[in-house]
């Protein structure tokens, strides 16, 4: 699926194999310039592998990954534009923060020490400490701080809020949104904190077993996946009939109330329910977390 705007990240038919096992299978994704794209999935679904292919750490076995029209792998010019925050500390433990700062300054043409100092007022990273002396949260903050200071065009974040306290977590999310608003930065983010993804992302994709199972704008995803509370006049065989409706993921009955989760909600769906004898229908918006849980359950059932 494509949305309007300039495509900055274009992933076409990408497959990644490690040993004889496919970690990514025929992945197709497009991310527009200036948008925030969230990728969610269970542990081991392939999120980090996809991000590593995107940042040029891994070489894709099949397909192409184009960033601003160029292959990312082994491309120093493209990597100048990418800020990458890994899910675990990737800095050399014996480096001092000030040595990392110097290294980044030399490596990235657009590194701004001014921006670094400005952000470090909030992040409070002591420059004289060695990486091994920093706490997990501080290491993550240092990584985010350095990668924001390179003034990236694309910010790739793999679980950026893991190990952070709620205050700094909120602060980071607001900085990311500010970056997009002020500099038109494109953000590709993976997180298990689905409330963050829901709050900041324009588009979202669900990955499962290395395959993209769903890709949509956040708005469309929320509009199409709904939970309905329905009361029927006649309840005989209704559960079976509801389950056979197109797009219905789950049906639960508590007393006279039927809870229906559908992934293809339209006005017609409501009409169908009335035709089946519904006397009361209430549509409930679902959180991304609920959507994800129902979606994964449905996929597991189909496998």
């Amino acid at each position, binding site marked *: 699926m494509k949305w309007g705007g300039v495509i900055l990240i274009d992933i076409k038919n990408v497959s990644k194999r490690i040993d004889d096992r496919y970690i990514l299978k025929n992945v197709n994704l497009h991310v527009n310039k200036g948008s925030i794209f969230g990728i969610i999935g269970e542990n081991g679904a392939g999120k980090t592998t996809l991000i590593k292919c995107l*940042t040029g750490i891994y070489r894709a076995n099949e397909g192409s990954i184009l960033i601003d029209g160029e292959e990312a792998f082994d491309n120093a010019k493209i990597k100048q534009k990418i800020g990458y925050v890994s899910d675990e500390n990737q800095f050399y433990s014996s480096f001092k923060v000030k040595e990392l700062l110097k290294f980044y300054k030399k490596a990235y043409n657009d590194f701004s020490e001014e921006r670094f100092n400005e952000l470090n007022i909030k992040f409070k990273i002591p420059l004289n400490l060695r990486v091994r002396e920093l706490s997990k949260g501080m290491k993550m903050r240092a990584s985010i701080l350095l990668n924001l200071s390179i003034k990236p065009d694309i910010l790739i974040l793999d679980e950026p809020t893991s190990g952070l306290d709620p205050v700094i977590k909120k602060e980071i999310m607001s900085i990311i949104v500010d970056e997009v608003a002020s500099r038109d930065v494109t953000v590709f983010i993976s997180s298990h904190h689905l409330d963050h993804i829901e709050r900041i992302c324009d588009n979202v994709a669900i990955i499962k077993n290395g395959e993209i199972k769903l890709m949509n704008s956040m708005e469309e995803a929320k509009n199409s996946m709904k939970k309905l509370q329905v009361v029927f006049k006649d309840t005989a065989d209704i559960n079976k009939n509801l389950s056979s409706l197109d797009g219905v993921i789950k049906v639960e009955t508590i007393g006279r109330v039927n809870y229906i989760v559908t992934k293809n909600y339209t006005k017609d769906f409501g009409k169908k329910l009335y035709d089946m004898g519904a006397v009361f229908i209430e549509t409930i918006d679902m959180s991304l977390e609920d959507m994800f849980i129902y979606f994964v359950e449905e996929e597991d059932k189909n496998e």
Partner: protein
Amino acid sequence: MNKIINEALFYKEWIYVKWITLLTIAILLSSKGYGVIWALNFKEKIQGGVEDYYWFNHGIYTENVNIFIMVFVVIILAITLFIGEKTSETQGFMASMPFTRKEILLNKWLVGVISLLISFAVTYIFLSLFYFLNIKGLDTTLNPYSDIIKWFFMNTFQYICVFTFMMLIQAVMGNSIVSSIVGGIILMVPLFIIMVAEELTGRYYGYTQYQFIILNKLKSWLNIYSYNFPQQSHIRVAVNEGYSDTATFAYYSNYKSKLLVLFVLTCLFLFLAYVAYSKRNIEYNLRLIVFKNLEPLFICGVAICSGLLAATIMDSYRLRDFGIWFIIFTIIGYFISKLLLKFLSSTK
């Protein structure tokens, strides 16, 4: 040159390598500095003796245990340059940054080479100063200044070549410590095979002078570690009026040819290291052998070397017994190599 040297990469590598450089300087100065100072003292003690004439030559060329320590230094240098990329947490760091693989490898090599060059240059300067400060008591015809130059070139070329080979092995193998140890051993393998062949052919077909000369030549050319081992030559020198005695002086045999071989090998190893490093997939970084298709080569190498080593140690006089030991330990070596591949490889 600016395109080759990446300031950021150079800075990053130098943070660690500067300490290895200091260590190398200390080892070289303690070895060569002590060598010439000892030779000067020794010369003064036996004033008028034959050793008097070549004392500086002996001071420079007499090799000691430090020659082996230098191999360890080169091994440590290679480990230091690669260890960060072969640790599960940090391995993706460099690959995500704006450097090409070519830049990363070339800068590692350059930093290593510069570290060695600095260490030898400091020692060269020390030796030159020592030479000129003691020139009054020195026969410059028998102890020419070119001895220092030759020592400098032979050693820098040799250790740069060994270092480049370690880089190649680091590019092909995973675990950085094991890679360097294996690399150090591989360079000895050709010499070891020739020695076994010499022993076996000599034992069963007899020793001929012709055979001895050829095998010795082969040994000296195949063992890169021995390129900087000086040869000794004896010469009759007049001691007092009417008296003469035999003096020895040291020199590098086939000096220019060896430099050429070392240069060619360095270029070859660097090219192969570049090819391997470019083709290397980071997801297999923590395996013992990064390239699956090279695993059989490793298994065969370990198996055959184990067989040869064990059969030689058992040292049976009969060829049949040698063969039996060889087969038994080749099979054992095969399983050992399989175990090594399993236990020294990590998936995380």
